[in-house]
């Protein structure tokens, strides 16, 4: 028996940074499309948008909003993620790294309503700014126009907006109502005047207080990163 060691083969994971793992995406804020790179045009595109809204409305008929729809077809995957004011649809090929894309998509949708919140390092943000592979030239022009509106007009982040952004992050591990209550309690305890613009240090402090309540270390670390990314958008 030979003692010679066989060379080990390391599995190379697909890089989530590669925009090729997203075929296209569409982002709505307050019901308005603010970014669009879906590789669909004409009737299929209109029907897809209509179908997504029907699905969301149907789910909401039960009294609570949806958080995520996911459909894995033979050749493509579709993920739709919801936050209170935003909705994001992401179309992926079958080899897309689902975990990484879901994390990136959640980051985008939870803070999409905030000015300057779209982080260029986020693969979903890049995908939203990059037209899909089969988009005809006339639609590329449309994409160019819509990406101009990615920065949603807004003044400094208010405490209401900051609370909402924190709530969207914390609501991934708690119910929306629990997250809202904890944030409201923290704001009240600190005697914050919510009519004034939010300051990054205090928002970070509250975010840290909340994430410390999460027992799971990996989940806590993920939430801390999201809070930090959100705080970084506060001027």
């Amino acid at each position, binding site marked *: 028996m030979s003692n010679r060691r066989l060379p080990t083969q390391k599995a190379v994971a697909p890089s989530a940074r590669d925009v090729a793992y997203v075929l296209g995406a569409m982002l709505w804020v307050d019901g308005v499309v603010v970014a669009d790179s879906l590789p669909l045009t004409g009737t299929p595109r209109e029907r897809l948008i209509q179908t997504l809204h029907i699905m969301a409305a149907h789910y909401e008929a039960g009294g609570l909003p949806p*958080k995520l729809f996911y459909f894995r077809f033979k050749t493509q995957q579709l993920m739709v993620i919801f936050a209170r004011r935003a909705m994001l649809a992401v179309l992926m090929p079958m080899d897309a790294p689902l975990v990484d894309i*879901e994390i990136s998509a959640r980051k985008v949708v939870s803070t999409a309503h905030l000015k300057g919140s779209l982080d260029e390092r986020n693969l979903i943000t890049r995908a939203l700014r990059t037209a899909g592979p089969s988009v005809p030239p006339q639609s590329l022009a449309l994409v160019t126009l819509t990406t101009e509106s990615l920065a949603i007009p807004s003044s400094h982040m208010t405490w209401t907006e900051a609370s909402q952004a924190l709530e969207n992050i914390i609501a991934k591990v708690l119910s929306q109502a629990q997250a809202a209550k904890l944030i409201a309690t923290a704001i009240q305890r600190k005697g914050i005047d919510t009519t004034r613009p939010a300051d990054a240090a205090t928002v970070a402090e509250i975010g840290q207080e909340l994430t410390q309540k999460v027992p799971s270390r990996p989940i806590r670390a993920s939430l801390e990163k999201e809070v930090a990314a959100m705080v970084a958008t506060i001027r």
Partner: protein
Amino acid sequence: MNGVIVSCPVDQTSVFSLSPHQKLRSDVMPAVEAVRSFIQQSAELLGECLGAGALSMGMVQGSRFCGAILAQDSSGSARVLISPEELTASMALKLLQADCDE
């Protein structure tokens, strides 16, 4: 679309085998049927737009309920997950596939 999903409370995460002639437990039947109905109808509509082939997995996640279906073969057999937890798509897929391997 029929069935209101969030009115189907479940108290624990469960994965079931479904076959065309199998009867479900009465306590989970409403939730499973609502999920199946929602996903099937959504998949038909989405499939027409995307032209992406047959559905192998569908999932719906809300604040208090998660439902997912993984198709196993063309005979109509499937695995269904219902849960009161908030699961990621990858976690739901993992749970459905892990159960299939048992």
